Structure formats: structure tokens, C-alpha cells
């Protein structure tokens, strides 16, 4: 469990990125932080592994403040997928994936074995292990980033817009993979995105953020869609537009659901879900 208590972050230039933020991240679940650009999502995420130090307040992991832990050890114990990949360009895929294992003293052989397994887990062909990151596609690089974060089998996985830079098709594929991974691995995941659909797809708990990491609403995707807490939330998640604003239309074969653009999105099946 990760717990934020009255966390504030003011950057040296005076920007208040996070103001008095509280959140409980339940274990073995995916919590998605979603908000527009500059709402403080990355700042929140990086305070968990001390890449950013809070100005005030505490962040606890299983009851221990992260500030009481050595930052280097802390980071090695948490998987982190960076917004831009952040792979080492001069090292092969396999060496990028084994980085944390090697840093924590796993023998080379064992680390390699483990890295190849993790490549399987994230759906990367083992034949790519000897390539350099620059020789991979954007989607493959993101998978390497995920593999690197998973290699040391951390309990916590931080993912910062991991699929922001890939095309919609690959993105959808990676999202499906992430769902599958989460079912298999059961990690505590904190996932950052500015894409509401991605948030609702992946999140068990979704946190909608406004500027200064002000929490607009917390809840499961259903709770939020069924009962938006404010005008802001309603318009942010788009309940009045696109595929979330559906109306029924009777046809000869039953009732179908149509979105605001007039496209039929599905069939209404009577009964309880």
C-alpha cells in the first residue's frame, strides 16, 4: 500500500505542482492518475521513488516513509517505466533489462536468464535481446522499458504515460497486454495518463486530477461514469460526447446503442452485468 498524506511539492521556481494531496493506493490493484498536461501527475509518481522530494507531507510504502529509505535502494525496489522510455542507448536490450539485477548483485548468467523470461512476459521476441534500443520500433522500446521495470520482480510498478508515443493500434495492443500482465503478476501499479479511455480501461481505481494535483474525483471507472462529482469531471471524461454519450435506438432485431456522432456502438442486452 502506498499512502500520500498532505503532500505538497513546490519547485524552486515557485511552481506549485502538487498542493496538499492525499491518496491511498491499494495493493495489487491498478491506480490510474489521469489529468491534463501539467496537472502534476509525473511529479506525484516521482515522489514515490524519490526522484522528486516532497516539499512537505509524507509518502509511505507499507507504513514506512520513503524519506527514511535510501533513495538508491528504494528505486531499485520499485519498477519505473518512464514517460519517454529512458533506455540506455549504448547498451543492448538484454543489458538494459538486466540493469537493476546487475546493480543488486545478481550473477550475470542468472540475470540473463531472468531477462529473457521477462522478454517473454512482455511479448518481445528473444531474438531482439542483442539489439540496441535504436534498432527497435517505438512500441518495442516501450516493451523493453516495461521489461526493465519488471526484471527485478518489484512489488510496485510506476508507469508514466508508457504508451504516449506510439500509434493508436500499437497503443491498444499494449493496453491489452498490460491488462493481461496485471492479471498474471498482481503488482501494485500506479499508472499515469492523460487519456481518459486508457484510464477507465486499465484502472481499478481512477484518480482525476486538476491543476496542482487537486483531486476532482476518485473511484472505480463505473462510479465515476455513473456519478461524476462535478461539472469538471463530467466534461473531462466526456459523458456528453463521443462513445460515452449513448442513446438507444429500436431496430427490428432489438435495441442498439448509438453515440452522439450517430455511429452504432453496440447492442443492448437485457439483464444484469
Amino acid at each position, binding site marked *: 500500500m502506498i499512502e500520500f498524506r498532505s503532500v505538497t511539492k513546490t519547485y524552486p521556481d515557485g511552481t506549485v505542482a502538487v498542493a496538499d494531496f492525499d491518496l491511498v493506493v491499494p495493493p495489487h490493484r491498478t491506480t490510474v492518475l489521469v489529468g491534463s498536461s501539467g496537472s502534476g501527475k509525473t511529479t506525484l509518481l*516521482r515522489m514515490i*521513488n524519490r*526522484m522528486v522530494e516532497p516539499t512537505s507531507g509524507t509518502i509511505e510504502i507499507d507504513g514506512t516513509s520513503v524519506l527514511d529509505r535510501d533513495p*538508491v*535502494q*528504494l*528505486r*531499485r*525496489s520499485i519498477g*519505473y517505466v*518512464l514517460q*519517454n*522510455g*529512458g*533506455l*540506455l*542507448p*549504448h*547498451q*543492448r536490450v538484454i543489458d538494459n533489462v538486466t*540493469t*537493476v539485477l546487475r*546493480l*543488486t548483485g545478481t550473477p550475470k548468467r542468472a540475470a540473463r536468464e531472468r531477462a529473457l523470461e521477462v522478454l517473454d512476459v512482455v511479448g518481445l521476441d528473444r531474438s531482439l535481446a542483442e539489439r*540496441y*534500443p*535504436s*534498432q527497435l520500433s517505438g512500441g518495442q522500446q516501450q516493451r523493453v522499458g516495461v521489461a*526493465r521495470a519488471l526484471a527485478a520482480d518489484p512489488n510496485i510498478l510506476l508507469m508514466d504515460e508508457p504508451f504516449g508515443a506510439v500509434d493508436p493500434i500499437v497503443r491498444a495492443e499494449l493496453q491489452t497486454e498490460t491488462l493481461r500482465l496485471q492479471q498474471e503478476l498482481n503488482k501494485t501499479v500506479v499508472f499515469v495518463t492523460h487519456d481518459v479511455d486508457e484510464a477507465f480501461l486499465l484502472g481499478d481505481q481512477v484518480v482525476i486530477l486538476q491543476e496542482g494535483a487537486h483531486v476532482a474525483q476518485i473511484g472505480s471507472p463505473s462510479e465515476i461514469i455513473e456519478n461524476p462529482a462535478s461539472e469538471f469531471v463530467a466534461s473531462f471524461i466526456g459523458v456528453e460526447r463521443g462513445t460515452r454519450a449513448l442513446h438507444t435506438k429500436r431496430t427490428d432485431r432489438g435495441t442498439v446503442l448509438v453515440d452522439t456522432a450517430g455511429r452504432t456502438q453496440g447492442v443492448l442486452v437485457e439483464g444484469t452485468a
Partner: protein
Amino acid sequence: MNLFADAIAWIFSPDRATGALPLSEAIGTHLAFTAVAVLLAALLAVPAGWVIGHTGRGREFAVALSGAARAVPSFGLVLLLVLLLGVTHKVAASTTAFVLLAVPPILAGAYTGVEAVDRRVVDGARSVGMTPGQVLRKVEVPLGLPLLIGGLRSATLQVVATVTLAGYVGSWGLGFYIVQGIQLRDFSQILGAALVIVVLAVVLDLLFALLERAVVPRGVSARRAEQSDPARRRRRREVATSAT
């Protein structure tokens, strides 16, 4: 043209193997001065440059130093140090002067190399739990190596040319032929020695150019084939100009 032929003839004359200062010995001394000066300068400037690049501290100092060094006349520096250290320490005085000349380009190469590493890569390295030392050793130094070699290249070229001046304060190196040639009005000797210096400089430059390429990490050169990186090219120019 005749002078040129005479100069070539001077270089290959059998007399060059004998006499008070055989040509091979002069070349050896010349290169030894260069090598010692560049090595000593590297011992000082490389660690300092890495620390400056890694921490960002002392950068203004390094920039000011390379600027100042550009304004210092080499010959003046050699003479000044001979005067300061005394005529009995001519070797030490000249070497010190050469080291001082070599430090700024090497320093610039070392710190721009580290600085030019993509901040996102450094951030990634830190966030997986590398200590600052590991970030420097495993990421910043290897990725910054081509620019460092560039700095060493500038320093070496500058020193190999400047060592010629040692001929004025002692009877060493290829510069001695030039000083002696001026006194004897032996123009083929002056030009011959100058040509040898030029050849040395060109050969050294070529070797460093090859080395500079060889140290580009493989994953980086694989990408460079596809897209050139304007930031990196800009840095390279900075290093080159700070050396002159």
C-alpha cells in the same frame, strides 16, 4: 618550387641520421614532449571535466578558463615560465607551459561530453537505482567519450605545433632545426623541419579522427546512421573553437 625540392632533399639527406641532432631523435623528442604534456593535462583535466559535467558545478569557471587560454600567446607563456622557474629548469618550464595549453580543450571535451548526454537517459539511469558514481561511469563517460577524444585531439594538435617553440629555449625537437636554420639562413632546413612538423600533425589528427569514430558506442552509431543529432554537432563545434 626549388626551395621545396631542397627541403625534401634536406629531410631525406643521409646527414639527417648523424650530426649533433639526428632527425629521428628530434622527432622522438618532439613527440615525447607532446605525449607527456597531453597525458599530464589529461590527468588533470579529464576527471575535473567529468565532475563539472556531472554536477554542473564549476561550469562558468571552465568556460572562462578556455576563453582566457585562447588569449594567452603560447610563446609568451613558454618564455614566462622559463623566467619564473629559472633557466636551469627549461624542460620543466616548457612542459608546464604545454600542459597549461592542453588543459582547456581537454577540460572542454570532458565536460561537454558528459553534458551532451541526453538528460532523459541520465534520468532513466538514476531512476532504476544507479548511484551518482554509476551514472557517471556507466552512462555519462561512455556516451561522452567521442567529445572527450575530440578535446584530446585539439589539445594534441595545439601542443605538437607549440613544442616547436621549445627549440628557442633548448636544443630539442624539430623547433631546434628551425631556430638554427634562421641563424644559418638555411631555408631548406627551415622548410624541411616545418614540413616534418606538418606531417606529424596531420598523422596525429588522422589517428585521433579514427579513434573518435571508434569510441562512438555501437547503439548510438546505429542510430546516427539514420538521423543526425543537431545538439551533438553543435557541442562538437564548441569544443573545436574553444581549442584554438
